[in-house]
């Protein structure tokens, strides 16, 4: 299955009581690409992320990741398979330092045996030093190395969003799901975030991106899926989507979406 799509979603339905947040969604994410999911507020984008990452169980449908069925698995099990994410409402470990946040991201890759840790055995202490170095490397990559000792809650919003991406990267994901990484950022920060996402793609990590900033979307995505009221209304390259009449209507009702 190493050549098939990384993520395949089939016939996905998600209902919250009477509200159908996602209707019969089909989605494929090819390896090594940036796939964007866009749509107006309430279209179901975050709900889709929550299902992929195991926060919610779908009402109906199948999800396959690297050829393996993952619907029904718990969030931490899905993380262990190589899907990582950020949250639309930033969910950092606010009372930890920037460095510690990234260190927690390495949790899946380290030994955390209760007794080894309680007895502070030598291999755990060596691992701790290695872990710091790895986390610093990631902070270097995302450009927050000089803030490593600050508490996460003291970062400005832009840097909190970047740190959340760094923490997700620390898990060594195959698929990185970013929920509105540019929301609330100013223009320079947005450009930096877009560059970071491309750099992540160049490392071979597949990216699933939810974003409202059309400039970012059109510039960096390989393929775009458009949701509206829980339904997929269009799919294709940025150029195709930009000229899609239904998309234009869903967004503005006039001729521009950029």
């Amino acid at each position, binding site marked *: 299955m190493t050549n098939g799509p990384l993520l395949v979603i089939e016939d996905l339905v998600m209902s919250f009581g009477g509200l159908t947040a996602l209707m019969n969604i089909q989605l494929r994410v090819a390896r090594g690409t940036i796939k964007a999911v866009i749509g107006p507020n309430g279209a179901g984008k975050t709900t889709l992320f929550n299902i992929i*990452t195991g926060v919610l169980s779908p009402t109906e449908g199948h999800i396959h990741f690297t050829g393996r069925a993952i619907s029904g698995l718990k969030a931490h099990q899905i993380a262990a398979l190589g899907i990582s994410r950020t949250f639309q409402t930033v969910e950092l*470990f606010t009372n930890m330092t920037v460095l510690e946040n990234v260190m*927690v991201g390495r949790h899946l890759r380290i030994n955390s045996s*209760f007794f080894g*840790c*309680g007895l502070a055995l030598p291999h755990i202490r060596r691992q701790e030093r290695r872990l710091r170095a790895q986390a610093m490397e990631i902070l270097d990559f995302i450009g927050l190395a000089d803030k490593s000792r600050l508490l996460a809650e003291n970062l400005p919003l832009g840097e909190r969003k970047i740190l959340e991406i760094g923490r997700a990267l620390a898990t060594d994901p195959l698929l990185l799901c970013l929920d509105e990484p540019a929301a609330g950022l100013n223009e320079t920060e947005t450009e930096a975030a877009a560059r970071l996402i491309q750099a992540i793609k160049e490392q071979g990590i597949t990216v699933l991106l939810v974003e409202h900033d059309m400039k970012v979307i059109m510039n960096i995505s390989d393929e775009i899926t458009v949701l509206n009221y829980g339904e997929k209304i269009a799919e294709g390259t940025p150029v195709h989507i930009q000229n899609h009449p239904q998309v234009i209507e869903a967004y503005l009702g006039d001729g521009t979406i950029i």
Partner: protein
Amino acid sequence: MLQIRKAPIAAGMLFILIFPWAADRIPGIDHYPDVMIFAGIYCLITIGLSLLMGYAGQISLGHAAFYGIGAYVSGILTTRYGFDPWLCMPIGALAAAAVAVAVGAPSLRLRGHYLAMATLAFGVIVNIFFREQRQWTGGPDGMTGIPGLSLFSFEFDSILSYYYLVWGIVAAAFFFTIALIQSPVGRALRAIHTSEPAAAAMGIPIARYKIFVFAFSAMLASLAGSLYAHYMNFINPGTFDLFFSIKLVIMMALGGMHSIWGALVGAVLVAFLSLEWLHFFEQFEILIYGAILLLVTIFLPEGLAGLPAKLLERARRPS
């Protein structure tokens, strides 16, 4: 960064080491080392509770039951089956851990304070068991003749030797726990405490961590119970009732739930309050605990452990 400072640890250790010597020289408090043995036994329990409450964010209202399980396993296995007292401690601890997993797992898989309710009921049931299963536990009268502890030919039969034994074990539990807090396990627990969705997204199995911490705290409480039984040589169900579970919560609230120091301070203070200072209030004792709990929650939500930081901040701020 979570750093446990070395100076207070050194000061605390020195205090524990010289306390019996000093108490012996101060008139009126020469019996305090005996009280400190109970304080140390309580500290073992609250160290585990500080992980459970401060890090896993869960409240137990039934830890007296685990304390009792340790005491009764020690009592029953030594007096009825001739087990070596030292062997009873790990057996009791493992039994307590197994019971904790059985009681805690269903409620810890859910979000919210279901553990408080489950442990409340559990504590009451275990106490009834201690009272009613006369053929095992001696019923309401309890059991006598529980042997003391000895190592090779050395008997821990003096107050002084038992004091150092108990506090040595407290020190071991303390160092184990602070190593844990500063390790990946501690980071994972703090992560769970701040954001469960984010912790899960990092691959941390939340339920398993909470269950493990609960079982660990049950093991420490059981160990404390064994130490109590081998010191008193006598146990009865009244020691392990709901009131004691509540006293444990008061220790945590008074000392501060989010700090292992708070756990120690709260345990020592409540030991002295209940065994020394509040004795003559008799049935009004419970009212005083209620008042303490109320005052602490209102004026010192971080407990006494939060006091230094609070005072420091007040001193810095020009009034």
